[in-house]
């Protein structure tokens, strides 16, 4: 089984430095691209591989790049979205800490494809080790001639900068991230114009996820058919999956795209801990719908998870066990979303705290049946099309599916006027 993204990362997770990276074929893709490929040919190959964005939305990467106007002069930007902050998600941390040059090489090739003049790594503040390693990697890449003026003696130049954030979930949304890079509040921008045309400082800009960009050197070296062959399903490539919660072996693994939920939970995560029963899981971070026992054979790719009524999202699963209250679980999520709402549009700013308060009341034993109607209503009124960005609709995904799959738990809180779970006593 091939694991292109993580095979060279030592088990300790320590970073591969430039010499070690070069020794395992690092920067050969960049050499090859600058010698043999026009920018359009790079984009064509990525399109041909049908690489889909690993940040959560699953949009075609090559397609995204193809919207950048190529016959304009002036600055253009490429940004690596390394602001991993989706609760339950810890996959990009592995790549950032373990193989920073793979990301840089992917970024330089991607920047060449859109003829960007400047690239940024927008890094989560909490990733202190990654910040240290990225700074070193950028300096080493400059010293080796992979960055700066006339890269490897060719007619292409690129500057690279690390930006560490100051903490706000909204920065994961690409237009909000761009506002933050401009020194502003991270509120989302109206689209169109899309960032590909008018992004950072009004210039054409591509924002891609760390895992997405880390694939680029491998796709350039091995081609689209190879990339597709890594997968079990129609969505190509490997995927970094993760599992957290009361399982025997929580962690992250690079696996063929399209492994089943059962395989992930039982083979890789080692099954539920003794005394804990599986009740459900958010398959791809906090803003995805629950999957349950009935979905164990769902193939974890973009189409498979969508057909099961959820989203692959970030591919990092959070497990709900039978000792954890589903109402408390969802209350925790809505507390997060209410806190992280940027407050720019009214449904999100007002609606999320309302759902948080209702869920808190239910947990405290003060809930009524009318509250369930209110929650149902919110899942619709904060759903897609009613808010400025995807934050509130994402926040409603775990809530609407909890109301569907764990309704009896909600009702039990109302009937018994208390939370029936002995909280956190395990």
């Amino acid at each position, binding site marked *: 089984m091939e694991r292109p993204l993580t095979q060279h990362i030592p088990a300790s997770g320590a970073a591969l430095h430039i010499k070690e990276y070069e020794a395992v074929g690092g920067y050969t893709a960049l050499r090859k691209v600058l010698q043999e490929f026009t920018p359009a040919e790079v984009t064509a190959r990525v399109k041909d591989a049908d690489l889909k964005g690993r940040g959560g939305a699953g949009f075609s990467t090559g397609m995204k790049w193809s919207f950048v106007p190529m016959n304009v002069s002036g600055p253009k930007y490429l940004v690596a979205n390394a602001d*991993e*902050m*989706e*609760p*339950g*998600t*810890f996959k*990009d*941390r592995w790549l950032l800490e373990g193989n920073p040059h793979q990301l840089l090489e992917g970024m330089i090739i991607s920047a060449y494809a859109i003829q960007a003049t400047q690239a940024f790594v927008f890094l*989560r*503040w*909490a*990733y*202190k080790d990654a910040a240290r390693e990225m700074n070193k990697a950028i300096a080493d890449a400059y010293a080796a001639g992979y960055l700066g003026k006339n890269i490897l003696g060719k007619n292409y130049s690129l500057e690279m*900068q690390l930006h560490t*954030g*100051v*903490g*706000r*979930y909204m920065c994961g949304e690409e237009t909000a991230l761009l506002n*933050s*890079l*401009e*020194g*502003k*509040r*991270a509120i989302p921008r109206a689209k169109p114009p899309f960032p590909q045309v008018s992004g950072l*400082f009004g210039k054409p800009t591509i924002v891609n996820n760390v895992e997405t960009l880390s694939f680029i050197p491998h796709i350039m070296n091995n081609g689209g058919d190879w990339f597709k062959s890594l997968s079990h399903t129609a969505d190509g490539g490997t995927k970094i999956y*993760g*599992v*957290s*919660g*009361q399982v025997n072996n*929580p*962690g*992250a693994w690079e696996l063929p795209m399209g492994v089943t939920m059962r395989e992930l939970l039982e083979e890789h995560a080692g099954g539920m801990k003794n005394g804990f029963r599986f009740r459900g899981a*958010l398959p791809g971070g*906090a803003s995805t719908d629950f999957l349950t026992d009935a979905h164990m054979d769902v193939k974890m790719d973009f189409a498979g998870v969508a057909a099961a009524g959820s989203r692959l999202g970030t591919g*990092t699963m*959070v*497990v*709900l*066990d039978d000792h*954890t209250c589903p109402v*408390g*679980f969802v209350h*925790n*999520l809505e*507390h*997060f979303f209410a*806190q*992280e709402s*940027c407050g720019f549009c009214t449904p999100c700013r007002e609606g999320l705290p309302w759902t948080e308060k209702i869920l808190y009341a239910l947990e405290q034993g003060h809930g009524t049946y009318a509250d369930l109607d209110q929650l149902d209503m919110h899942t619709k009124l904060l759903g897609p099309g009613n808010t400025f960005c995807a934050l509130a609709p994402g926040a409603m995904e775990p809530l609407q599916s909890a109301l569907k799959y764990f309704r009896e738990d909600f009702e039990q809180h109302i009937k018994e006027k208390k939370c029936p779970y002995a*909280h*956190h006593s*395990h």
Partner: protein
Amino acid sequence: MLSDTEIAQITHELQQVPVKKAACIEALKIVQQERRWVSDESIEDIASLLDMSTAEVDSVATFYNLIFRRPVGRHVILLCDSISCYVMGYTKIQNKLMELLHIKYGQSTDDGRFTLLPNACLGTCDHAPALMIDNDLYRDLKEEELEKILKKYE
């Protein structure tokens, strides 16, 4: 008044950006690095350096979770309260910390040693529950380890 070091660092940032405003977040980080928090006076100083209104700078400062607009202790404890840590029982860690430090969220110890804050997901969910003190990450936390961890910070 901003120190010469702060002004030098902010001036350096200004050279990296096409418009002055774009250095706002970096300027806030620089000031906080030096003073641990950002006072009203510092907001005014940054505003005049970047040709912004104080309200504009404050709107940025108050938006971000990790810019502190009130004084904090010598060490800031950020306890993850997001979903994986919830499932793995962060509330026990929270209660123990509050008991050991005699403070609640948002408060600092009387000796100015610690400030305790809840924090959104630290991205280390396979090792929940987790917290950070300054630049140090602690994972797979158990209540009984907390006292020893706190002892490392003066």
